[in-house]
C-alpha cells in the first residue's frame, strides 16, 4: 500500500510530539546560579500595558547600569520578567514559573490583587522581598505584609499629601472626592475624609462612578451643587476625569482639579486637553524633564534614553534601585539574601539619596515611602511643573 509509509511517519510524528509534551514538566527545573535574581510579573499586554512597558524598561535599565558597573559585590543582577496581561491568575502562574526556574531574591508584582494573593506564598517561602505597581493602603502594614513594600506613598498618603498642600494653600477649603467603584478607587476614601477633617478641611461630597465611565453629567451636577474648592479624583487612569473637568467648567465651577499617581503621568495629563490646564496631582518622583534641581540619576536616564520616559518607567527604575540597595546592605552585613534580611536591610535606609529621582532624602521605616510633591499641568509648555516643595508625612 503506497500510503503506509506516510501513515507510519504521521504516527511517529504524533508519538514524538506526545513524548515532547510529556517531557516539558521535567524541563522546567533548571536552577539559577549565583546571580541576584529579580523576577517580575509585568503587565505588558492588557489594560495596564501602558504602565507595564515602562516599568519593564525601567527595571531592565537599572539592572544594566548596575551590571555594567560590576554588579553588587561581584554578583550580577539578573532580571526575569513575564507578561501577565494584568490578570491575577496569570500573574501567579508567572510567579510560580519564575520561582521554580530561578532562585529568586526580589520580585516585582503587577497589582494589588496579586500582592494580596501571593503574600501567603511569600511568607511560606521566606526567600523573596517584593514590591510592585500597587500603592494599596492595605499593603502598608509591615506586620501583615512583612516581605513587601511600596515604592512611594500609599493611596491614603498620596491624598494626605494633597490635603496638606490644600490646607496650606487655602485653610478651611471644601474638598470633594470623586472615585471609581473598584478596590483601587475606594481604598483611601474613608481614611482621607478623616484626615481632611483633622486638617480643618470639609468634605461636602463624595462621588463614586464606574471605572472608565464616560457619561458623568448627573455626577457633575451633584459636584457643582457642592461647590468644592478642590476636587480630588482617585481610582482612574484618565476617563472620566476630562469629562468632569470640561462639564464642570462649562457649568461655571471654579474648583481646582487633582489626581493621584496613576493619573499623573505627563502623557496622560496632556491627553486631557487645553481645559485641564492647571490640573494638579501628587507625584512621588521627579518627571523625566524636570531639571529644576540637580538629579544625577535622571541625567543617566536621559543619557540612556533621549526620549520622554513615563512615571511608570521611573517607578520601575526606582524599585530596582531600592531592591539593589537592600541586597547590597544585606551582603555588606554578611547575611544571606532572604526575605527577612532583605526587608530588614531596606528598613535601615535613612536619608538615602535617590540621585534626584525623589527630590529629598528618603527614609523607609515601614512598608511605604510617604513623600511626594504637588505638580501642576502647564498645557502650553506640555509639561508638569512643580507646585509645591517636597512634602513628607514622616
Amino acid at each position, binding site marked *: 500500500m503506497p500510503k503506509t509509509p506516510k501513515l507510519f511517519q504521521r504516527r511517529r510524528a504524533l508519538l514524538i510530539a506526545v513524548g515532547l509534551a510529556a517531557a516539558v514538566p521535567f524541563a522546567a527545573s533548571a536552577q539559577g546560579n549565583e546571580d541576584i535574581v529579580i523576577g517580575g510579573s509585568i503587565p505588558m499586554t492588557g489594560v495596564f500595558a501602558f504602565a507595564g512597558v515602562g516599568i519593564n524598561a525601567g527595571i531592565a535599565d537599572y539592572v544594566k547600569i548596575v551590571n555594567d558597573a560590576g554588579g553588587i559585590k561581584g554578583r550580577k543582577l539578573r532580571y526575569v520578567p513575564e507578561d501577565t496581561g494584568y490578570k491575577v491568575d496569570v500573574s501567579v502562574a508567572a510567579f510560580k514559573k519564575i520561582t521554580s*526556574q530561578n532562585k529568586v531574591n526580589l520580585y516585582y508584582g503587577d497589582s494589588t*490583587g496579586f500582592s494580596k*494573593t501571593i503574600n501567603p506564598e511569600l511568607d511560606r517561602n521566606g526567600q523573596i522581598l517584593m514590591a510592585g505597581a500597587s500603592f494599596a493602603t492595605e499593603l502598608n502594614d509591615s506586620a501583615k505584609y512583612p516581605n513587601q513594600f511600596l515604592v512611594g506613598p500609599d493611596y491614603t498618603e498620596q491624598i494626605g499629601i494633597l490635603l496638606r498642600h490644600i490646607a496650606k494653600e487655602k485653610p478651611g477649603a471644601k474638598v470633594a472626592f470623586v472615585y471609581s467603584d473598584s478596590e483601587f478607587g475606594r481604598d483611601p476614601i474613608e481614611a482621607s475624609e478623616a484626615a481632611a477633617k483633622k486638617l480643618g478641611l470639609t468634605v461636602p461630597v463624595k462621588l463614586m462612578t464606574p471605572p472608565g465611565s464616560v457619561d458623568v453629567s448627573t455626577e457633575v451636577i451633584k459636584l457643582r451643587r457642592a461647590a468644592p474648592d478642590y476636587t480630588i479624583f482617585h481610582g482612574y487612569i484618565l476617563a472620566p476625569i476630562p469629562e468632569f473637568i470640561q462639564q464642570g467648567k462649562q457649568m461655571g465651577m471654579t474648583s481646582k482639579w487633582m489626581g493621584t499617581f496613576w493619573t499623573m503621568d505627563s502623557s496622560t495629563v496632556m491627553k486631557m486637553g487645553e481645559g485641564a490646564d492647571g490640573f494638579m496631582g501628587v507625584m512621588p518622583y521627579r518627571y523625566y524633564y524636570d531639571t529644576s534641581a540637580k538629579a544625577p540619576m535622571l541625567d543617566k536616564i536621559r543619557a540612556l534614553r533621549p526620549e520622554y520616559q513615563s512615571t511608570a518607567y521611573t517607578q520601575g527604575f526606582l524599585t530596582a534601585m531600592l531592591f539593589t540597595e537592600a541586597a547590597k546592605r544585606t551582603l555588606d552585613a554578611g547575611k544571606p539574601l532572604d526575605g527577612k534580611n532583605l526587608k530588614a536591610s531596606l528598613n535601615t535606609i535613612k536619608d538615602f539619596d535617590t540621585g534626584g529621582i525623589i527630590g529629598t532624602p528618603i527614609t523607609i521605616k515601614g512598608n511605604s515611602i510617604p513623600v511626594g510633591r504637588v505638580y501642576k499641568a502647564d498645557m502650553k509648555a506640555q509639561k508638569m511643573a512643580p507646585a509645591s516643595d517636597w512634602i513628607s508625612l514622616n
Partner: protein
Amino acid sequence: MRIGTLKQSYIADAALFDSRTQKAWLAIGAALLVLFPFMASDYWLYLACLVAINVASATGLNILTGYTGLVSLGQAAFMGLGAYTVAIMQTRLGTPFLLNIVAGGVVAMLGGLVVGLPSLRVKGLYLAIATIAASFIAHFLFANLKLTGGTSGLSLPPAQFFGLPLDTSFRLYWVIVPVMVLMVLGAANLFRTRVGRAFIAIRDRDISAEVLGIPLLRYKLLSFGLSSFYAGVAGGLWAYFFRVVTPESFPLLMSIFFLAAIIVGGMGTILGGIFGAVFMTMVPELLKLVVDLLPGGVEMTVFLSPVRTVVFGLLIVGFLVFEPHGLAEVWRRIRRFFHLWPFRN
C-alpha cells in the same frame, strides 16, 4: 486491531465505559494523574490545579448550555458565591474545608435556582442578559456587604487536612484533582439517567419535550441548580487555591472565558468541557513558552507579548470557523483514524 464492541445486554449497552481499550486508557490516565505531582515543577502543578478548577466549572456550564441549551453568562458570579461562602465559613466558623466546599456549592446552587427562574419565559440572548444582570447583582453584594469584607475582600488561611495545612500546589493537587474527577464522572453519569435525557430533550426542542411530559420549569431550574453547584464547588476550590477573594476576582470576562471554553472544546460533550478548559488555560501559557524559546531576551518579550495575545485570539476564531464542533470532534476523528487504520484514513 479493534473493529467493534460486542454488547450482549442492556446493562453493557448503557455502561459508562464500554470497551476494554477505553478502560485501559482511563487507567493509564489515572496513573498519570497520580504520578504527575511527583514529576512536575511547582509551576506545572499550579497550572494543573488551575486547569482542574476550570474543568470543573466548564463542565458545570456544559450541563446548562451544552446539554440543556440554556445560555448563561453568570458562571463567574456563581463561582464567586461559592468562593465567598467558603471564605466566610472558613474565617468565621472554622468548619472543615470539605464541608465548606459543599456548602459553597449549595449556596451557589440556590443562587442558580433564583437566576434560573426567568428561563421558562426567556431564551437565548434574552436569558444571557438576565444572567449578566445576576452577575452585576452578585458583584454589588460582594463589594458592599460587611460580611464579604467590601472591596478589600477576604483572605483565608490554608485548608487543613488532619492538621496538615494545604498551602502548596502539591498538597492542594490531591484535593482539587480528585474533586474535579468526581464532578466530571458525575456529569458523565448524569446523561445516562432520566434527568440527563430530559435535559437533552429540552435542548433539542423544548416544546416537544413538554409534550412528552417533561416539566420544563422543574428541569430547567434543576439544570441551573446543577450547573451553579459545579460553579460553586469550583469557586470554593478557587478560594482555597488563591486564598484571597475580592469582588474583582470574578469578573464578567471570566464567564465569557467559560462560555468560550465549552464552545472551543465542544458543546454537549463531557470531553468538550475538559478540552475547552485545558485549551483556554494552557494555550496562553504554551504560547509564552514558545516566545521564551525565541532569542532576544527581555526586549523580545515586550515585542512578542501582544503578538501572543493575537495568536491566541486567532486560534479561537480558527477553531470556531474550521471546527465548530470543537476539540472533542477533533479527538473523535483522531480516534476514528486509529480504529479504521489501515483501511481508511
